[in-house]
C-alpha cells in the first residue's frame, strides 16, 4: 500500500510552496484584483522559468516529461496561494489536449512554445447560461471555419491559442484556433472573482485545426474535464487548507469576553468541521491522483468524487473563515473574501456541484460492487 506522493514529488511541492510564499503569496491575487489585470505576468514568467508549464510535455518536445502526480502537488500550492496565473487553462486543458489528441505537426509546433512560455493556451466549452451539452452546442464548424460565441473563457486576454468543442457534421469536434486571427473578437466579462479574468470569444469564419478524430470531440472534452477535475480539486484542497489556517490563526489572536475566541466550542467545532471536510477532500483527491496517474478506468468516478468533495470543502472553509473573522472578515482589507470568491469560481468553472454529483451517481450506477475499505 503506497497511497502517497514520492519523496521527489513532496520535495517539488515544498519548493512550490516556498516559491509562492517568496513571490508574495496572496498579495499577487490582490494586486490583480485591485488593478483589474488579466493575470500576474511577472509571476507567470517565473513559473515558466521553473519549467512547470512543461511538466507533462515529453522531453522530445523540450518538456520535463513528468507525470500527473507532479502536476497534482503544484496544483495544491497554486490553490493555497490563489495564484492569479493562466496555469489551469494552459496546462490542465490546452497542453493536455495537445499531448493526447494533437497530430505530430501541431505538437512539434506548439508544445516547445508552451514550455518556453511563447504560447499560452486556453479552452472554451460554455456558450450560454445553461449547462453545455453535446446537443445544445451552437458554435459550429463548416469547412474548417468556426462561427459562434463561447463565454466564460478563462485567460483569453493573455492566451494566443485555444481549444474548443464545436458542432460538426459528424457530431462534435475538438478544435484548435489561433486567437490572434483577425476573425476573433475577445471581450472581457465581469465576474465575481476579479483575481481571475474571463472573456467572451466570438468567431467569424475563424480558421481551425481538428484535434483527434472528427465526431469524438465530446468524448475528448469529457476526458479532459475529468483530468482537470482532479487537478482543480487539489487547488481547492490547497485553498481550503489555507482558509482553515487563516481562521485558526485569527481565532488564536482575537479575544472576546476576556478569552481567545478559539477557546470557545462554537469556534472549535466550526474549525473541526472544516478540518473534517478538508481531510475527506484530500483523501478523495489522492484517489483521484491515483486514477489520473495510472490511467485507470475508474477516473470518471474518482474525478467526480474528488471534485464534489473538494468543492464542498473549499466552499465550507472559505465561508466559515469569514464567519470566524466576524466584521473584519467582511472587509476588503482582510483576505477572507479572496478565498470566498476563488472557491465560487472553482466550484462552477468545470460545471456546478450538481452537475458533478450527477456524474458521480451515473458512474456509481454502472458499477455493480464497491470495494469497501
Amino acid at each position, binding site marked *: 500500500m503506497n497511497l*502517497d506522493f514520492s519523496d521527489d514529488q513532496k520535495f517539488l511541492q515544498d519548493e512550490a510552496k516556498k516559491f509562492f510564499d517568496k513571490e508574495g503569496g496572496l498579495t499577487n491575487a490582490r494586486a490583480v484584483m485591485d488593478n483589474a489585470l488579466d493575470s500576474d505576468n511577472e509571476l507567470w514568467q517565473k513559473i515558466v522559468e521553473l519549467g512547470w508549464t512543461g511538466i507533462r510535455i515529453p522531453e522530445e518536445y523540450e518538456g520535463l516529461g513528468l507525470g500527473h502526480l507532479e502536476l497534482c502537488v503544484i496544483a495544491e500550492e497554486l490553490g493555497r496561494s490563489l495564484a492569479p496565473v493562466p496555469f489551469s487553462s494552459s496546462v490542465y486543458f490546452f497542453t493536455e489536449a495537445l499531448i493526447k489528441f494533437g497530430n505530430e505537426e501541431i505538437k512539434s509546433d506548439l508544445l516547445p512554445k508552451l514550455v518556453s512560455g511563447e504560447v499560452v493556451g486556453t479552452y472554451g466549452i460554455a456558450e450560454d447560461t445553461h449547462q453545455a451539452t453535446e446537443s445544445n452546442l451552437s458554435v459550429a464548424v463548416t469547412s474548417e471555419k468556426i462561427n459562434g460565441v463561447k463565454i466564460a473563457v478563462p485567460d483569453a486576454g493573455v492566451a494566443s491559442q485555444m481549444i474548443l468543442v464545436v458542432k460538426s457534421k459528424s457530431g462534435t469536434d475538438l478544435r484548435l484556433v489561433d486567437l490572434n486571427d483577425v476573425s476573433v473578437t475577445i471581450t472581457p466579462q465581469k465576474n465575481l472573482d476579479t483575481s481571475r479574468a474571463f472573456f467572451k470569444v466570438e468567431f467569424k469564419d475563424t480558421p481551425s485545426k481538428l484535434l483527434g478524430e472528427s465526431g469524438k470531440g465530446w468524448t475528448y472534452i469529457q476526458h479532459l474535464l475529468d483530468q482537470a477535475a482532479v487537478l482543480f480539486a487539489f487547488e481547492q484542497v490547497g485553498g481550503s487548507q489555507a482558509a482553515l489556517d487563516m481562521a*485558526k490563526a485569527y481565532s488564536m489572536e482575537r479575544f472576546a469576553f476576556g478569552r481567545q475566541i478559539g*477557546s470557545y466550542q462554537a469556534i472549535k467545532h466550526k474549525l*473541526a468541521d472544516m478540518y473534517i471536510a478538508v481531510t475527506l477532500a484530500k*483523501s478523495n483527491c*489522492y484517489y483521484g491522483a491515483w486514477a489520473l496517474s495510472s490511467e485507470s478506468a475508474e477516473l470518471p468516478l474518482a474525478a467526480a468524487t474528488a471534485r464534489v468533495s473538494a468543492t464542498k470543502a473549499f466552499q465550507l472553509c472559505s465561508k466559515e473563515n469569514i464567519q470566524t473573522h466576524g466584521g473584519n472578515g467582511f472587509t476588503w482589507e482582510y483576505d477572507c473574501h479572496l478565498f470566498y470568491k476563488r472557491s465560487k469560481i472553482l466550484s462552477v468553472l468545470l460545471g456546478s456541484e450538481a452537475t458533478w*454529483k*450527477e456524474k458521480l*451517481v451515473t458512474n456509481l*450506477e454502472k458499477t455493480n460492487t464497491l470495494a469497501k475499505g
Partner: protein
Amino acid sequence: MDFNDTPEQAKFRAKCREWLEVNAELKENKNSGHTDSTLEDHLKVAKAWQQKKYEAGWAMLHWPKEYGGIEASPIERIIWGQEEAKFNVPGGIFEIGLGMCGPVMMQYATEEQKDRYLAPMAEGKEIWCQLFSEPAAGSDVAGLRSKAERDGDDWIINGQKVWTSGAHYSDFGILVVRHDPNVAKHKGLTFFFVDMKSPGITVKPIKQITGQAGTGAGFNEVYFDNVRIPDSQRLGEIGDGWKVAITTLMNERLAVGDARGSDIEEALILSKTKDDAGEAMIKNDSVREKLADWFCEANGLKYTKFRTISALSKGEAPGPEASITKIVSANKLQEIGNFGIDSGDMAGMLIDENDGVSSFQGAWLGAPGLRIAGGTDEILRNVIAERVLGLPQDPRADKGIAFKDIPTKA
C-alpha cells in the same frame, strides 16, 4: 502510488492466509457475520478460537516477545486483521483485554502477576474488562466518584461503574477509583485490577434503546459494595490513577475503528432495486444527491485509512487524519439507516416477523450509541480542535479546586 503490498508484507499476508485457510472457513459474503444462538455458545466458540490462535502464535501479535507476542508492526496487525475479517470467526470478546488491560499489566504489574495473568488472557481462558465510566463521569471521566478507602493491606471500594462492555462474562477488570476527594480532580485517582468474582460486585446488564440487554459484548452497570482489593493489585502509585488510565486509553485509540453496519453499498443496492411499479429510487434526484454525499464520505474515509496504512507501511508515524473516522462514519450510519427505513414508506416502521430488525433499522437504532461511545461527537470535535489544530483548551470551572468542592448542581 499503488495499492500493493511490499514483498515482506505480501509474504506476511500469505502466511496469515495460509493458516486461516486451514483453521477457519471463509465467509460466504463479506457482510455475513459470526452468530451463535446464545451468549454461552458464543463465548465457548470465541474461547476455542482464541486458544487455537494462541497455540499457533496469532493471538497477540503486537505483544512483546517475552510475553508471547511477535512484536508485530502496526502494518502487520492491520494485515492480520484484514485477512481474519474474511473468515467466519468469532470476535468482540478479547479486544479489551489484549488491547488495553494486557499492555497496562505489562507496564505496572509485578513479575509474579504478569506470570499469573498474561498467559491466560492471551489464551482466552480469562476475559478482562475496563471499569472507567460512571453515571456522573462520561466525557469528563476524571470526575469519577467511586471511592477507595485504605484498610490495612486492602482497599475497600464503593460506588458504581457504567457502560462496561462484557462485565457480565469477564473474570477480571481494570479499575480507576478516587482515593482522595480533598485534592484536585486528576490527582485523587488510583488504578487497580480486580477479580470480577469478588464479594460485593454486582453486574447488571443495561437495556439499551435497541431493546437489547446482556447480548453479545453488551454494556453493563457494575456496582461495588464494600469490595476488598489487596493493595498488591494496585497498578502505579497512589494518586497516579489518571496517568495510568491515559496510557490505557492511548492503547485503546489504536483499536478504535469506523462504525460497522449499513453503508453506501447497501444504500446503493437498495436504491437500484425496483419497486412493484418497476420504479427504482435511484431515479429520484433527492436520492441521487444523498448517494453522492455518502459516497464522498465513505470513499474519503476509505482513502484516509489507506493514507494511514501507507504511512505505517513505510515505518512512518501516520498523520492525525484518522481522527475524523468515527465522527463521520457514525453520522453517516445514522443517515443511511434513516434512509433505508424511509424507503419502505409506511411499511418502513414495521419489523419483519421472521427476519427481525433489518440492517437499516439496526443501523438507525444503534447509531445514536456510536455517536457517543468512545468519545462523543462533541468531545471528538474538541479533540480535533485542541490536539490536531492546536486551539486553546476550554477554561475549566473545576481547575485548581479540591474534588469535593467541584459544583455538581445548579
